[in-house]
């Protein structure tokens, strides 16, 4: 066939070149038609323009999931305020600047080697138990007469050390890192424990940590880092 000649039926042509397919005004060596280029270009521009506002907005909404929260050591009293026999409640600030909603209670006592079998280190000379029930997050109360923590919502019961004794909770009560500076007791970030009181980074209530649980409910990016060991 003579180059540039229009075949009988131009739609039947399989030539990769627009000239070979008999396109009017085709350039030599041109394979992509101008219509195709325009369609692709406009779609590409549309996607780029949408991504330009949608991706930052999505990142903005998802940001807190990946942002590590800071923590500060808070003083909760002097060593003489606490004892080995029973708990003393202390109101602590979990989130600053939002009033009552950002506060929580911790039950604090001194470590008692007779009952506290987990290994001792600088962060558990004073034991601070979180009041957040590990069923679904209601506040538990330490009942002096029974020596147990009891949750008002769905009847979870924990023993003196915060280990689950009955009801729906899936793991022992969370604890807080504590340290002693001079004679002052300070409270730090939260950590979760499994039924052997092994430490894990803080998990939400309802997430078991024994067996497969620690893998089904992985650590999050947003929780405060554990304090460095000296």
């Amino acid at each position, binding site marked *: 066939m003579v180059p540039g000649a229009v075949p009988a039926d131009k739609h039947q042509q399989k030539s990769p070149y627009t000239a070979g397919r008999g396109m009017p005004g085709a350039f030599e060596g041109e394979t992509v038609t101008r219509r195709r280029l325009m369609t692709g270009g406009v779609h590409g521009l549309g996607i780029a323009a949408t991504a330009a506002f949608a991706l930052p907005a999505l990142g903005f*909404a*998802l940001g*807190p*999931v990946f*942002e590590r*929260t800071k923590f500060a050591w808070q003083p909760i009293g002097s060593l003489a305020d606490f004892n080995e026999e029973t708990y003393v409640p202390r109101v602590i600030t*979990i*989130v600053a*600047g*939002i*009033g009552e*909603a*950002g506060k929580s209670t911790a039950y604090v006592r001194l470590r008692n080697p007779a009952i506290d079998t987990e290994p001792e280190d600088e962060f558990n000379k004073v034991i601070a138990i979180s009041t957040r029930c590990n069923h*679904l*997050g*209601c*506040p538990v109360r330490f009942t002096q007469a029974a020596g147990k923590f009891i949750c008002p*919502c769905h009847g979870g019961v924990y023993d003196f050390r915060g280990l689950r004794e009955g009801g729906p909770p899936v793991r022992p009560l969370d604890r807080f890192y504590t340290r002693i500076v001079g004679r002052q007791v300070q409270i730090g970030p939260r950590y979760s424990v499994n039924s052997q009181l092994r430490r894990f980074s*803080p*998990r*939400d*209530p*309802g*997430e078991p940590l024994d067996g497969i649980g620690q893998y*089904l*409910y*992985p650590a*999050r*990016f*947003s*929780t*405060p880092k554990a304090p460095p060991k000296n």
Partner: protein
Amino acid sequence: MPKLPAPPLPAALQPKPKRPGTGNGKVGPLDQAAEAGITVVDWIDERTSLSGGLRWMMFRKVPKGTNWFYTLGSAAMFAFLSQAVTGVFLAMFYDPSPTRAYESIRYITNEAFLGEFVRGMHKWGSTVMVILVFLHMGRTFFFGAYKYPRELNWVIGVVLLILTMTMSFTGYLLPFDQRSYWATIVGVNINGTGPLIGPYLSDFLRAGPEFGATTLSRFYAIHMLLVPGLIAAMLGAHLYLVAKLGTTAPPWIKAEAEAEPTLTETEV
């Protein structure tokens, strides 16, 4: 088209038909007003062709046996419209900050003019909407109205049900009293028990590992901007498919012989 029967008025009150030959040439203010209305509607219709779409939407053939159960969908839609309107006006007083939310709700309830009434409509209306959505779903299920070719409309309806539940969940926190605070804590933690993804979803809902400074405003934005927009869009698709596919007859209506038409034209 058959003529509607005349209302049972005494003869003296019934409008008298115009005598032939009178009323020509003289145009009263009433005729002028009617003419002006027609002109405006014509002007819009000439430029938009809206009347065709309206006729397609409003004047549909409905099957024999259509009954009060078929109004549950419209009822649920009106419950949503009521929530939208009362919600917009509540938003003029509400302050989604953890330290001032409760106070702003207290102001709406105790001091703002009609505040208790409008808030009451929104609060009880949410329950009414959930009940109506479930009744509508039950009607669709028991009448078999989810079958071919209406499966997609069932799917859209399920999405609308989930969105309605999301509205209930996010709206419950907003009064920010003890009940709403702890109920939301429990709700978010239930959500967190989903394996692998649950903990991160909870972080997304709370905007962090703990109930924090922006959790309330996040719930508020989801409650008043994100989900209502989605519901409105889904509702549009739901209604379009209802108009396009038509409604089903109740299961107790048997198909009749071919000679007799089974459809009657009714305004829905």
